[in-house]
């Protein structure tokens, strides 16, 4: 049955080469923890991706309840956490996942750095990886404001002060992020929400696509 469906689609769209490109590649012995346990360091990148998927899915469920305005944001998070079935688990996954993704990404970066895996011909992939790191930090920063509780508001005020301290363009960056030159309020929350939910994930998906395309094209770096 499944084979027939596959053949039916393949006859029309010729998906076999595509499938072989995506799924069919070799896993060398030196990265396989089944053969060398120390190769578990090669898992960090994959785990980062795994948590990113968890973040995307849990985030999608959070937006079913979250309301990005200053009157209801906190109330909606409180309701989600205390009234909704499994709301605490979903919010917990998104909250702890945000920390864990940073940890895994940090370990992955160190693995690549200390193995010198960023050297020619993989310079571009390293740069894209560092950009992903920045996007992840920005996601953490913007997501921190969204529950609209005390620590969210005041940490964001500090962040905006730091942005303002940038010479020349600082005040413009601040207004761009917060929607007003002095008030951190309704505009700031909706802007951070838009950045957290649309702009940064779009950038992240693009960068991750490039990251994976390059690793597939070049293959993983050889043993030291």
């Amino acid at each position, binding site marked *: 049955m499944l084979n027939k469906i596959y053949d039916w689609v393949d006859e029309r769209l010729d998906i076999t080469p595509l499938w072989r490109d995506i799924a069919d590649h070799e896993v060398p012995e030196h990265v396989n923890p089944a053969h060398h346990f120390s190769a578990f360091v090669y898992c960090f990148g994959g785990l980062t991706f795994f948590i990113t998927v968890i973040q995307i899915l849990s985030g999608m469920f959070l937006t079913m309840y979250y309301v990005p305005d200053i009157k209801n944001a906190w109330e909606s998070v409180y309701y989600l956490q205390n009234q909704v079935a499994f709301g605490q688990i979903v919010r917990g996954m998104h909250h702890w996942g945000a920390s864990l993704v940073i940890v895994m990404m940090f370990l992955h970066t160190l693995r690549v750095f200390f193995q010198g895996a960023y050297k020619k011909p993989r310079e571009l992939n390293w740069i894209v990886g560092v950009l992903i790191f920045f996007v992840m930090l920005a996601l953490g920063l913007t997501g921190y404001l969204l529950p609209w509780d005390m620590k969210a508001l*005041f940490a964001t005020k500090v962040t905006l002060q730091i942005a303002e301290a940038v010479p020349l363009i600082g005040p413009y960056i601040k207004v761009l992020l917060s929607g007003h030159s002095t008030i951190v309020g309704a505009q700031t929350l909706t802007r951070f929400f838009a950045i957290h939910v649309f702009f940064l994930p779009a950038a992240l998906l693009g960068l991750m696509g490039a990251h994976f395309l390059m690793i597939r094209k070049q293959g993983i770096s050889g043993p030291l």
Partner: protein
Amino acid sequence: MHRGKGMKFVGDSRVPAERKPNIPKDYSEYPGKTEAFWPNYLLKEWMVGAVFLIGFLSLTIAHQPPLERIADPTDTAYIPLPDWYFLFLYQLLKYSYASGPYTVIGALVIPGLAFGALMLAPFIDRGPERKPSKRPLATAFMLLSIASVFYLTWESVAHHDWEAAKKQGAIVDVEIDKNSDGYKIAQAQTCTSCHGGELAGGAAAPSLLELDLTAEEIADIAKNGKGSMPAVFKGTDEELQTLAEFIVELNE
């Protein structure tokens, strides 16, 4: 593969009519114990992922995600703290050479140099050697950076008053005894229809749980109104006294 003249397509599409069999590549000629990603290796990865997921879900069940009280911009005494992975940058801004008139150094120059160097690492560390011991400068700088990040984070955590932080953000839950005389009077005198059954305020009236008023002032407002609040209280002086004291107690 057949190309050009005589090639057959599916209908009027560009998809070739010739079918290619879906056969995995043969990895037997590859060095060492190379194995196929699909499906052999993916299955093992799947199991690692499942174990990881169990640990992760245990964490979310054991530890509730924190939520402080609703943002109050007027509370100027609140000491802010970013999420833990920004603490090292936050701590940097506390040193005199990186704050005040030198904020640009702490906020921009030092992090900019560090992250700039990280991004351009392949162009700074250009030699062919990959072993950490064969490229001492790159290894040394990275170890120094890691040590700095850990030290700054540690300093930030050690100098933060966690007790005070917990208190300043705590959600205030006022227990209201709904069988008390005071609450019954509040209900009878229609206080609750605007200020809410939990007296926490609503669209038409503010909260009665965050007042800084004496019993006399509260009694006066209840009897004579204030601002958009009409004079609602129609009971005896004794009831007024009980009501005012009940509200004061809630605010202690």
